[in-house]
């Protein structure tokens, strides 16, 4: 599908799941897979890394 930022093509693996992050190979923007129905995905901007993220 196309990057909502720069329109480049983002390849989403078949086994990707909702909640996973994909990055645009051209502009580097990160998107979260918000929903997935077969090969049709809805993307939303990924949250930026928070101060309390991680272990």
């Amino acid at each position, binding site marked *: 599908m196309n990057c909502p930022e720069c329109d480049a093509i983002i390849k989403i693996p078949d086994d990707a*799941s*909702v*909640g*996973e*992050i994909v990055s645009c190979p051209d502009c580097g923007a990160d998107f*979260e897979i918000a929903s997935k129905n077969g090969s049709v995905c809805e993307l939303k901007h*990924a*949250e930026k890394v*928070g*101060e*309390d*993220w*991680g*272990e």
Partner: protein
Amino acid sequence: MPKVRIVFDRVRLEEKMLEEKAIELGHDTKMVDAKITKFTTASKKTEFDFGDVVIERCVSYFRGLHFTACLEFLDIPVINRFEVANNCGNKMLTSLLLKKHNVPTPKTYISFSSEAAIETLEKEGYPLVIKPIIGSWGRGVMPLKDRDTADAIIEIRELNDGPLDRIYYLQEMIKRPPRDIRVIVVGDQVIAAMYRTSTGGFKTNIALGAEPIPCEITKELEDVCLRASKAVGGGILGIDVMEDEKDGLVVHEINNTVEFKGLAKVAKRNIPKEMIEYAVRSAIR
């Protein structure tokens, strides 16, 4: 078969491994996105599909902690429990609990103003390691090697003026090999251990590029880690251990939402399987 739910806010390899294993073990398994879940004080358990047990796996500590509180409000079993998450998420609470339960841990100095922190450093001598009491992936952890560095770091803290920035947590610098040990404890068992060797700097976080190397689970390591787990309340935990040249093994941190993709590469036991089976056992107790 008990139903397993995995709460996430960002799906990483670990969450995918847990989901895959739970399905493989035959459990009705669903992923629950914390970001789109809503509770009210009038919420009832029956309004949700949280199954028989929830494994809380949010990457955001505070989101996960508060989500856990909501689940426990609904009497839903959660791994880890709120109390455990709270104890592990706050390095000061962890240190106090470890010491209270006679688990070897680095000597830690706690003060509540910049002036008191500087007094500690001047009295005890440099270096001491400064750590944010709540923080992750090694951020904000640094050795204060002299007064100039201490003044600079403390000045930055005062400028940031976050709600926890006035709590100063300073720890003795442990003389050790350039590595630490990450141990995964699940319930009353040590599941896996690895050395994390630093890539040249002071920190040994896998998230920062440290290389995972298998580590033998000795009786001493097992004993220290099980006692550390018990001190914070038990569950699924990642225990960080240093090899002090003087005092042997010391526990310096316990992680509540343990990342294990590095360790899974070198572990003999199947980490996600052990975690799912423990969660299910906890639910049917």
